[in-house]
């Protein structure tokens, strides 16, 4: 079954307007859509991230589902404990980690790996804005090559970790990438993950206008261009089998880069280099798509 806009409109979701999120926040957009698919029978565990602040200050909260804030490295472990407790109580509840990229690919990777290896029945979501945005734009293990951050003032020199593939290597039943520029694809991946038992992982490309210095109104467009330029391919790995879920006509990477000041000042050679990396990744995914099992 494929979700339509009408299906999404039926469910109120767990985000209430008037939060502390920045205008045009991709993480909020992702949560709005995801929570509509997950429904109210869901508990969220959130490590330190922008999303800790987006909830807004005590004693109010912009989130209308049960949500527990936990220390930075610990989200996947805490979610494991929540799930096991509900199991003992005979309750069937969606247990979801909602984490940023720092809390996922850096400080949270150990707990995430442990929970994935144990096959905890939880959904781990990384909304990826490609840097430590809550602390004010410092590079993370998810920051792309050559991107400006406050701790990489002349551009990041290293490749980001390929986190979805790292999780997939744990042979979990479901791993997917998503983008706030492709909300139906995103919604359908949550719909699928919700029904699968075991450890699920969804990694969402999530625009951050203040962190990327992109126009506030272009949150969706930047995230769509990320996919259309093959910078952020959309795929899923279900029981080891990879499928590219969106195969757009390739657009020049330049169109994506030019919308964000974090890539300002790249030389022609650097853009070419990035274009080459993007195509290599895309071709590799096409190759993986042909094999019976990736992992």
């Amino acid at each position: 079954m494929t979700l339509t806009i009408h299906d999404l409109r039926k469910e109120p979701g767990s985000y209430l307007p008037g939060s502390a999120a920045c205008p045009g926040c991709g993480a909020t957009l992702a949560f709005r859509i995801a929570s509509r698919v997950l429904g109210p029978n869901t508990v969220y565990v959130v490590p330190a991230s922008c999303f800790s602040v987006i909830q807004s200050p005590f004693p109010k909260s912009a989130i209308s589902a049960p949500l527990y804030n936990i220390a930075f490295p610990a989200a996947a472990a805490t979610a494991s404990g929540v799930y096991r407790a509900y199991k003992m109580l005979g309750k069937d509840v969606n247990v979801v980690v909602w984490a940023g990229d720092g809390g996922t690919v850096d400080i949270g990777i150990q707990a995430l790996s442990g929970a994935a290896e144990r096959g905890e029945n939880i959904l781990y979501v990384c909304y990826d804005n490609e840097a430590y945005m809550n602390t004010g734009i410092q590079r993370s293990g998810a920051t792309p090559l050559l991107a400006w951050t406050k701790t990489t003032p002349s551009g990041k020199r290293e490749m980001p970790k390929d986190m979805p593939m790292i999780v997939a290597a744990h042979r979990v039943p479901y791993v997917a990438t998503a983008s706030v520029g492709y909300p139906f694809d995103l919604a359908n991946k949550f719909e699928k993950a919700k029904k699968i038992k075991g450890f699920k992982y969804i990694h969402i490309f999530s625009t951050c206008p203040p962190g990327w210095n992109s126009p506030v109104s272009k949150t969706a467009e930047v995230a769509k261009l990320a996919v259309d330029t093959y910078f952020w391919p959309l795929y899923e790995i279900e029981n080891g089998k990879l499928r590219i879920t969106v195969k757009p006509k390739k657009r020049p990477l330049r169109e994506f880069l030019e919308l964000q000041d974090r890539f300002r000042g790249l030389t022609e050679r650097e853009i070419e280099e990035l274009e080459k990396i993007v195509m290599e990744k895309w071709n590799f995914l096409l190759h993986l798509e042909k094999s019976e099992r990736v992992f």
Partner: protein
Amino acid sequence: MGLGVPIIVPVSKPSKGAAGKTGLWRVERPVVNEDKCIKCWLCWLYCPEDVISEGDNGFPKIDYTFCKGCGVCADVCPTKAIQMVREEE
């Protein structure tokens, strides 16, 4: 301790406007031109703040109390039916 021990926990209740009337942040407001609107609801889908709903007349209605004026709705509108209009000082 006959007074009892108050257990003060950081438990917060879901609430609209948890960070206040965020509409005050707005520099530009989205205005829907109902003649151009085809009710595709993409504005609703992409609105990061969830402030677009269906008005009594069946067209998108924007909750200006909380709309932060990001302009994503105007950007994604396929018929250019939403215009960003500068807020008066």
